[in-house]
């Protein structure tokens, strides 16, 4: 059906972007002036190790050859081997993807749960005190570093009250969800300023539209008019904004996972950077990049599903 063809087409459009990503990720190590091997290994590695690395990565060969080598390996599913642990990157990463995805999902759901009611409240009470209070949220929220929010949340809701775990992931589904509440909330707090602003603006526009008057003229309750007619329309541009910012959210998972000790790919990335484990950094950079592009495609598809005026071409 139409939707499926559209999805496929968008996925195909991803290919050049992913290719560009791959190229960039590959070029990363070569962008730095100096010896790539030494950059990878940090200051003062033993010469033997440097030589071994050179051999392994073919760093003596021309750039194009190296790139081809890189791509072939990728296509075979070989993402490299961790310098720190010797374990193939693929193995290290695959276990850790689900927690990150779960975190992103929980974060997005929380964001919507918080933003939609607040934005609606603000739009309906335009220029009265609820509106002013709610509009302060984006002003404050922009400058709130997520790690700081995380620390405050841990202090208030975990350490002092013990309602939620201060970290860790748990081993079964209920425990895992419980563990994701604070991290999800942290992410939501980071995203809500943007979504509130966007949804409120969209709602203000929509509420002035004629079809809202039509809905009222049918004798529908204000609640139904608001949610079934107004929000239903206003959420469409907001989904685009959300999609654009989820890329940023995905980057945010790095910090959140690290602080809350969630075993996802974000925490893995941070560790890999600190340990200078280049193959892992490279592999994860690629994966994160693909994830972000995927999310954008998803947002696009969702938007066209919600808005029949958009042609699915």
């Amino acid at each position, binding site marked *: 059906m139409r939707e499926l063809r559209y999805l496929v087409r968008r996925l195909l459009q991803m290919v050049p972007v992913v290719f560009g990503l791959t190229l960039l990720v590959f070029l990363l190590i070569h962008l730095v002036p100096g010896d790539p091997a030494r950059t990878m290994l940090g200051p003062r590695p033993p010469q033997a190790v440097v030589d071994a690395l050179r051999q392994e990565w073919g760093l003596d060969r021309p750039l194009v050859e190296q790139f081809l080598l890189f791509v072939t390996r990728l296509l075979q599913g070989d993402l490299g081997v961790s310098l720190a642990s010797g374990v193939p990157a693929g193995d290290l990463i695959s276990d850790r993807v689900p927690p990150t995805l779960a975190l992103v999902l929980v974060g997005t759901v929380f964001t919507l749960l918080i933003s939609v009611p607040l934005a609606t409240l603000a739009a309906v009470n335009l220029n009265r005190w609820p509106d002013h209070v709610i509009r302060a949220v984006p002003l404050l929220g922009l400058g709130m570093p997520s790690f*700081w929010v995380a620390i405050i949340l841990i202090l208030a809701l975990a350490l002092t009250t013990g309602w939620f775990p201060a970290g860790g992931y748990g081993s079964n589904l209920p425990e895992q969800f419980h563990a994701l509440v604070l991290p999800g909330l942290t992410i939501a707090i980071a995203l809500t300023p943007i979504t509130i602003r966007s949804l409120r603006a969209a709602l203000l526009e929509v509420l002035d539209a004629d079809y809202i008057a039509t809905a009222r003229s049918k004798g529908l309750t204000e609640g139904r008019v608001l949610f079934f007619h107004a929000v239903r329309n206003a959420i469409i541009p907001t989904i685009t904004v959300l999609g654009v910012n989820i890329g940023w959210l995905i980057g945010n998972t790095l910090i959140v996972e690290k602080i809350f000790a969630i075993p996802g790919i974000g925490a893995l990335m941070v560790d890999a950077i600190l340990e200078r484990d280049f193959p892992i950094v490279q592999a994860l950079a690629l994966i994160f990049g693909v994830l972000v592009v995927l999310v954008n495609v998803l947002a696009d598809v969702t938007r066209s599903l919600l808005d029949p005026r958009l042609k699915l071409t």
Partner: protein
Amino acid sequence: MATAAQDVPTLLASPHPRLRRRWTRNVSLLLGATLLGTLVFCALAAPLLSPYDPIAQDLGNRLASPSPSHLLGTDHLGRDVFTRLLYAARIDLQVGFLGIITPFVVGTVLGAIAGYYGGLLDTAITGLTSLVMAFPYYVLIISLVFVFGRGTQGIYVAVALVVWVSYARIVRGEVATARQQDYVLAARAAGFSDLRILGRHILPNAITQAVVYAMSDIVVIIVGIVTLSYLGLGVPPPTPDWGTMIDDGQAFITTHPHLSTIPGLVVVLTGLALSLLGDGLAEQLKPE
């Protein structure tokens, strides 16, 4: 020609932004400017405001509670927290304000060129912006941080490479619209050089939106460097930085919560100041 030149000045009365219009009643602008001014002042006047050395350790006086001699107490190495806060402002504010310059300038210039000349140049520049925008920003930052290691270079380079696109798009749009206006056509007819037209007449208006946008970008950059420092990838110790302060204080979160909480609050305050300023400017410079 003489007649044309005489007519031109009147025709060239381009609509300049109303900078002096009722700014006294613009709450956001006043509040934002005052707040920011205070913060900048504190940063600049740090040596005057505090007698302590931000990196001098005093291991005999560790984790002291707030007192008249140490307004916010001392940290785990005996350093005065208040002083460190002030000096951290220097570094973090500097990164924010300096970091925005390159992308702002590059983006504005490219955007102006694209919007003014159109055609192939426009297509090329717009294509470039689309390409960069499609790229996940965070991946680039993280990778560059990896490449450059600790310090502030990573963030300067990353920001310069990625953030310019917003300004290019904004300025391009404004310039393209302005280009069609009467006063520009008159100026071109009068033979004024493109540079003069752009510089004196179009850009002052076109740039106002970009400036407003820059305010929020500065916040993003500051939060970025603070985050990197928290992770150990930013400003290297012992230079004080809000992020490192939060990191240092995290171990003592239950006994001395203020060590981690207060630096974060200052970041939020900075963000608030810049956002208010941005909103106020947007309100002020709106065409009547």
